[in-house]
């Protein structure tokens, strides 16, 4: 037998909790069979989860690395692997490998900065890791603003955590919005890019965006029109991946591989790349 390390060979993960977040998103808590975290990660990094016989897919790790007990993945039902996971019960084993990708520069460029997080839909999943990291090390960052929008009230991810924890934190402002009027919602109604412009943030912030490509595009334009420089704006990309380590050849945008050179990119770096993501 071959004793060498092999990144393609995963570890066993056990689903210890399944939280129903929205009609099509569930959050899965995963540990190893002996109850530990499968590996350490940094905010913004990803992991390959698989269901043997169904397939393997890349997911952002939504829990913060400061959570030392388990990892969480917020997963939208939209394909073979995710459909299967949505049927999984507590105690089900899956496989896990990682961490993959370049994390957010939380201890470098972000240190000491006012932070503006902007997410749409399941795009909150990768940002939740960095938001909770910043909340954990609260004194290392300035003011935190979070703009989060989804189709409807029922589609807001992590709603309980947002209401109970984020909104009660000192120095954290949460701005929620939904696309259309809905009974029982007295908050803001409208799309995220417009809401960001309405809120009119000062440019003394580092912005982090994640959401559907169309939302990212218009929000980026909105931030630039508010006077933000693209070097102040970060986003995280997603493309199809198989290996996670820049070898299978499919997640490149120009000469950059999203799996290893990303998924986190600064927006001025994205301008250098061809428009193929």
């Amino acid at each position, binding site marked *: 037998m071959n004793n060498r390390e092999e990144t*393609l060979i995963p570890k066993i993960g056990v689903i210890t909790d399944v939280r129903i977040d929205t009609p099509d998103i569930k959050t899965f808590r995963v540990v190893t069979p002996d109850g530990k975290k499968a590996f350490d990660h940094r905010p913004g990094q990803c992991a390959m989860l698989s269901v*043997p016989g169904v397939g393997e897919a890349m997911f952002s790790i939504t829990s913060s690395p400061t959570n030392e007990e388990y990892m969480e993945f917020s997963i939208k039902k939209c394909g073979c692997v995710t459909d299967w996971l949505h049927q999984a019960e507590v105690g089900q084993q*899956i496989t896990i490998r990682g961490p993959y990708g370049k994390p957010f520069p939380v201890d470098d460029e972000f240190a000491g900065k006012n932070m503006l997080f902007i997410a749409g839909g399941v795009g909150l999943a990768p940002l939740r890791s960095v938001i909770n990291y910043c909340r954990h090390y609260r004194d290392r960052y300035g003011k935190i603003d979070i703009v989060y929008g989804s189709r409807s009230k029922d589609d807001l991810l992590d709603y309980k955590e947002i209401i109970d924890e984020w909104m009660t934190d000192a120095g954290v402002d949460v701005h929620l919005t939904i696309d259309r009027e809905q009974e029982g919602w007295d908050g803001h109604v409208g799309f995220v890019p417009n809401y960001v412009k309405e809120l009119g943030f000062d440019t003394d912030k580092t912005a982090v965006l994640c959401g559907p490509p169309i939302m990212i595009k218009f929000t980026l334009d909105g931030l630039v029109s508010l006077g933000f420089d693209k070097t102040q704006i970060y986003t995280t990309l997603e493309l*199809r991946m198989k290996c996670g*380590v820049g070898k*299978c*050849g499919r997640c*490149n945008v120009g*000469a950059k591989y999203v799996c290893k050179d990303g998924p986190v990119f600064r927006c001025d770096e994205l301008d250098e790349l061809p428009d*193929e993501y």
Partner: protein
Amino acid sequence: MRKCSLDSLNSVFAKIAEAMALYLPVDGSDGRAVFSKWEDGSVLSNALNTVRSPKDFFFPQSEDLMRFKTEGKNIEIIDIRPESEDFAVFGVRACDVKSFDILDRVFLTEPCDSYYASRREHGVIISLACTRPSETCFCQAFGIDPSTPAGDISCFKTDNEMYWQANTEKGEALLKAIESLTEECTDEAVNEQKEKIRAIMKKLPLASLTTNSFGGGKTTELFDRPEWAELSEACLGCGTCTFVCPTCQCYDIKDFNTGNGVIRYRCWDSCMYSEFTRMAHGNNRISQKERFRQRFMHKLVYYPENNDGLFSCVGCGRCLSRCPISMNIVKVMKKLGGESK
């Protein structure tokens, strides 16, 4: 340098095959050369090159990665990686030898691919200098000298003799094993032959092809060129070019349910296929134009950008002779400015 007569070549092959599996190009029933395992009576093909490249030995078209056993909610992962056994591949041309430098930079970069690495460690590459380069050859555009191939051992075939030159420790060990069947010699005949080949190379139809318009940092300049639409128009997306290519290394990972567990395997994939980048939320390479452009931009711009200027093409010419619509990297390079006047 050592040599043996061509008459005794079969006994040299027999000696090597005693120590390890030996593969060499032989003519198949359809007259095309294929790498086959040596057995008594195998005859070395005179063809310029094999239909499929020797990358197959190190990065096979399909290979099992691991197995899973599932019982109820539990999964067992079974590591099925075997320790590779020593083997030798004889008759690898200079272009194909170069392809291993390109593949190594993908698979041996951290995190190292243990499947590929194990075969690389156990495989001995015995190259063979070209004596009759063909009109589809353009290795020289990528700085490759077909008269002087690299590899663990370089061989040179003249009218009556085979010359053997070890280049690595692995190569020296193998030459040692066949010492009794070869004799020490000067490199005079080999040098004479090299000069002849180099003279032929200058006269080849693709001798004027250059890489001057390509390389790292050229993405912005080349990506939106209008020529991509015309070049890709007839592409069928069949993927033949990627399968015969010695440097194409894109792969897919899939699971197969055997009825008695699951095998996770890896197989070649192709950026020419529409499913290659298809995701639940869409496809970022929506038409054949984007997929076609990806293949050539990768070989001529993206790969060199990430690998110190090394191009991911060795000019073997396989794609020129195999494409059903006669599209190929040479046409792409010429169209985008890669021909010296």
